[in-house]
């Protein structure tokens, strides 16, 4: 799209008119126009850089501004993630008690230097006082339990109330996970303010509150949103990115990688997540830059060291136990479980969200949050596995029992020789733990369905992983005991001899977590890589791969879309899924407007229309043709640009009246001398509109739309203009094919 005529270009650094070439809220950008504009800008800078040293320096700084921006995004997102981790830990522990030596310490840090801890009660120390101890003066007994229960409930309600009110008051866009919206934005949609500074502040603050309130939600999804907000805000420092929607989306793609990188301490996994799950336009340059930014963020977070163990996530594990080929069977079983749970969860959650969207339920968002919090807190407190936070639970489930562990999950009967770790029968402690875990599984599975989508920041990764980890651990312990009591079964024979460390329940928990997360989000490679980075052992790639692949296939059998795509569709965002193939054999002529019964296509002629005629139109863009008889296409012009230019001309140019001719040709046509001077608008016309012929198969057209990021495309037949296809038309057509309501597509 050229601003000038012919090869001579108008200086692209100064837009001829402010506003020309911008977009309205809730509209889709034209990728081709944006990228072409950036290339013009770049060319201009390169040209100038040959003239003077200052310009050369500016060109160098322009070239490096991308890297600088990435560095800043990484630093800022890493620092914010560290702060969120610290604050969430502290607030979570505040529900339980308070530290006397410094109110800002959480439970663990309160007992950090204490020598009074014992082997069994590792985190009990006199500095840390539970609310019962403070209020009732006693730490045991029914009364103390009730006091603690009530305080837990009280704080949970306070936190969630604060979270939902702050979101409502300052940034309604801060609620939810944010990933569906970011996917849509990255595909070219514009939601003004979605990545603004108020959203950033509110999301950061309320995310901590929401996580601490004990609701079944995680911070991972919202961290992606937070990182994208950082990137968007930092983009304003650099002209290159501030003024170009396409370039800005490159930065946002990298920011999504940063978000996952800090959420899981997995820079490579983050980049692959951005590539596989979130991004739309991901050139190789972005790959390098996102990797760089993800690394910077991970190292910022590591230097903050929020958990005090030099790890980026609470549930980092380092396994070295081998696995046997026979174990692939239970791993695939976990995959099937994950897939079923994923499909079920998506159905149930979407049904619930649709209910919220359409019925009276949606009118009481604050009350809804409070009620759900109350239910969660009341049920969660008595069971120690639901009382602890999601990441702690996962960490405990992933952990392999060693002699040094005193957790209930390691309550095996000790053999006489205290040396052997492996191959022990379960003791009563473990059986209790298993019951509690089973209850926790049912609870987590049901409460997450109604929690995700409430009007607080809420991520889905941790709850899904928790569900999977519980299921996996249960299966793992079961397998372990099975092997213990049946050493002579032929499947256990060769590898599970008495005394050998043959089954690792922690590994099962990990595989289960991956399977459930895979079932819900339909990630595959990025998920495996994230898990690989969490454990740092290539040897578990095969179990993880088997489980995630099974999970994806099982879940896909029930419905092709992951939770994020389902939410995108629920909200009717204009998102053209890149993973989905267009299967139907329709042609462009079947999809284009006008349809057979419609009035003919609204078009402008290049030199025979008056200003009044042009202004009275009401579509958002028009093809310009040579004459309405020949219908030979000249270009395309957006209504917004047209109106801005006409407004401007009326103000600044003399003699522009409604009867003035609007001329899109290079040379003004001859006119009668008394006529008002023509208004020349060739500058705002796109001289290279995309066209396809009416016989083009829709699968090709959809491919063109996806790959080039088009907003609209004109349809011709034998060189004559026939109609127009917009992104919305395609989405409506796809909805129709899939027997869905085409009017569910709300935006352009």
């Amino acid at each position, binding site marked *: 799209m050229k601003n000038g005529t012919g090869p001579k270009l108008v200086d692209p650094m100064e837009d001829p008119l402010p506003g020309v070439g911008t977009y309205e*809220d809730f509209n889709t950008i034209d990728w081709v126009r944006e990228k072409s504009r950036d290339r013009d800008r770049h060319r201009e800078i390169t040209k100038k850089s040959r003239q003077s040293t200052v310009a050369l320096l500016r060109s160098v700084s322009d070239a490096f501004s991308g890297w600088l921006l990435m560095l800043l995004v990484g630093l800022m997102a890493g620092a914010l993630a560290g702060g969120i981790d610290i604050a969430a830990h502290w607030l979570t522990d505040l529900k339980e008690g308070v530290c006397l030596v410094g109110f800002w310490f959480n439970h663990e840090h309160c007992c950090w230097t204490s020598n009074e801890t014992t082997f069994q009660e590792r985190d009990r120390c006199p500095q840390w006082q539970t609310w019962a101890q403070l209020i009732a003066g006693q730490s045991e007994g029914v009364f103390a339990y009730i006091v603690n229960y009530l305080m837990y409930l009280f704080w949970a309600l306070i936190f969630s109330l604060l979270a939902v009110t702050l979101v409502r008051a300052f940034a*309604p866009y801060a609620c939810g996970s944010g990933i569906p919206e970011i996917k849509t934005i990255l595909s070219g949609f514009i939601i003004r303010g979605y990545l603004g500074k108020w959203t950033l502040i509110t999301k950061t603050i309320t995310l901590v509150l929401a996580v601490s309130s004990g609701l079944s939600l995680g911070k991972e999804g919202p961290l992606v949103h937070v990182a994208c907000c950082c990137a968007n805000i930092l983009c304003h420092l650099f002209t290159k990115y501030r003024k170009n929607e396409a370039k800005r989306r490159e930065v946002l793609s990298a920011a999504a990688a940063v978000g996952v990188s800090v959420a899981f301490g997995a820079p490579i996994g983050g980049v692959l997540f951005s590539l596989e799950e979130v991004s739309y336009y991901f050139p190789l340059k972005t790959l390098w830059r996102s990797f760089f930014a993800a690394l910077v963020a991970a190292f910022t977070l590591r230097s903050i060291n929020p958990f005090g163990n030099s790890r980026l996530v609470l549930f980092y594990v380092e396994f070295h136990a081998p696995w046997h080929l026979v174990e692939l069977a239970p791993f695939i079983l976990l995959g099937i479980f994950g897939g079923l749970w994923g499909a079920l969860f998506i159905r149930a959650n979407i049904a619930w969200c649709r209910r919220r969207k359409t019925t009276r339920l949606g009118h009481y968002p604050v009350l809804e949050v409070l009620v759900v919090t109350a239910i969660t807190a009341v049920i969660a407190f008595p069971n120690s596995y639901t009382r602890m936070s999601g990441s702690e639970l996962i960490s405990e489930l992933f952990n392999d029992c060693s002699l040094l562990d005193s957790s209930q999950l390691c309550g095996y009967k000790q053999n006489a020789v205290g040396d052997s770790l492996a191959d022990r029968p379960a003791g009563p402690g473990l059986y209790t733990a298993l019951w509690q875990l089973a209850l926790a599984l049912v609870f987590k599975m049901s409460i997450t369905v109604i929690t995700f989508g409430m009007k607080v920041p809420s991520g889905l990764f941790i709850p899904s992983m928790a569900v999977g980890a519980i299921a996996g651990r249960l299966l793992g312990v079961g397998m372990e005991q099975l092997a213990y009591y049946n050493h002579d079964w032929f499947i256990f024979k060769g590898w599970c001899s008495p005394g050998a460390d043959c089954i690792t329940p922690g590994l099962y928990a990990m595989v289960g977590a991956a399977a459930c997360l895979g079932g819900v989000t339909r990630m595959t490679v990025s998920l495996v890589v994230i898990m690989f980075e969490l454990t740092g052992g290539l040897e578990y790639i095969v179990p993880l791969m088997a489980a995630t692949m099974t999970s994806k296939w099982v879940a896909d059998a029930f419905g092709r879309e992951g939770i994020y795509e389902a939410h995108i569709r629920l909200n009717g965002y204009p998102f053209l899924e890149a993973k989905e193939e267009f299967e139907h054999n329709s042609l462009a002529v079947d999809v284009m407007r006008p349809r057979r019964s419609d009035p003919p296509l609204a078009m402008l002629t290049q030199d025979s229309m008056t200003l009044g005629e042009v202004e009275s139109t009401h579509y958002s863009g028009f093809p310009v043709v040579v004459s309405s008889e020949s219908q030979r296409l000249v270009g395309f012009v957006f209504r917004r640009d047209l109106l801005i230019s006409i407004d401007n001309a009326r103000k600044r140019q003399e003699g522009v009246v409604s009867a003035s001719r609007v001329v899109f040709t290079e040379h003004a046509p001859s006119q009668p001398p008394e006529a008002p001077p023509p208004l020349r608008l060739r500058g705002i016309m796109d001289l290279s509109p995309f066209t396809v012929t009416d016989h083009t198969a829709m699968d090709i057209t959809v491919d063109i739309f996806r790959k080039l990021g088009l907003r609209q495309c004109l349809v011709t037949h034998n060189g004559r203009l026939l109609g127009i296809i917009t992104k919305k038309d395609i989405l409506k057509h796809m909805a129709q094919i899939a027997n869905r309501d085409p009017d569910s597509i709300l935006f352009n």
Partner: protein
Amino acid sequence: AKNFEDVRCKCICPPYRNISGNVYNRNVTQKDCNCLHVVDPMPVPGHDVEAYCLLCECKYEERSSNTIKVTIIIYLGVVGALLLYMLFLLLVDPLIRKKDPYTQQLHNEEDSEEMRPRADTATLRGNTVLERVEGAQQRWKKQVQEQRKTVFDRHKLLS
């Protein structure tokens, strides 16, 4: 600025013979972080020390209590400020500006968006700094109202 209580060497010793498990915690340098230095008093006689120590696991850990303190205080500060501002907007603000004619007029803009034509918002901008802040605040409030409508009432986005 490293606080003396910001490092620790934690040794966990599992049950051994008739001695129950124990956790030892000492404030030593990384170099000295091993069972022999940290486990004191040694619960086993001399010839058993080596075997006992083999079972123990010692970890040297560092933290920054200042970072924790500063983070928590900043966090509480921001939450407090937001709450106060919210109360101000809810209670005080409506009393001050009952007369404002623009409040009902809805704009659909982001203040940080510079590319849009500012013709319609230019009237809001005064000359003094106070008036400008005023104007920006007005625009922001309208924007939040619009967002609230979209998300909370109409359920058009994010549901």
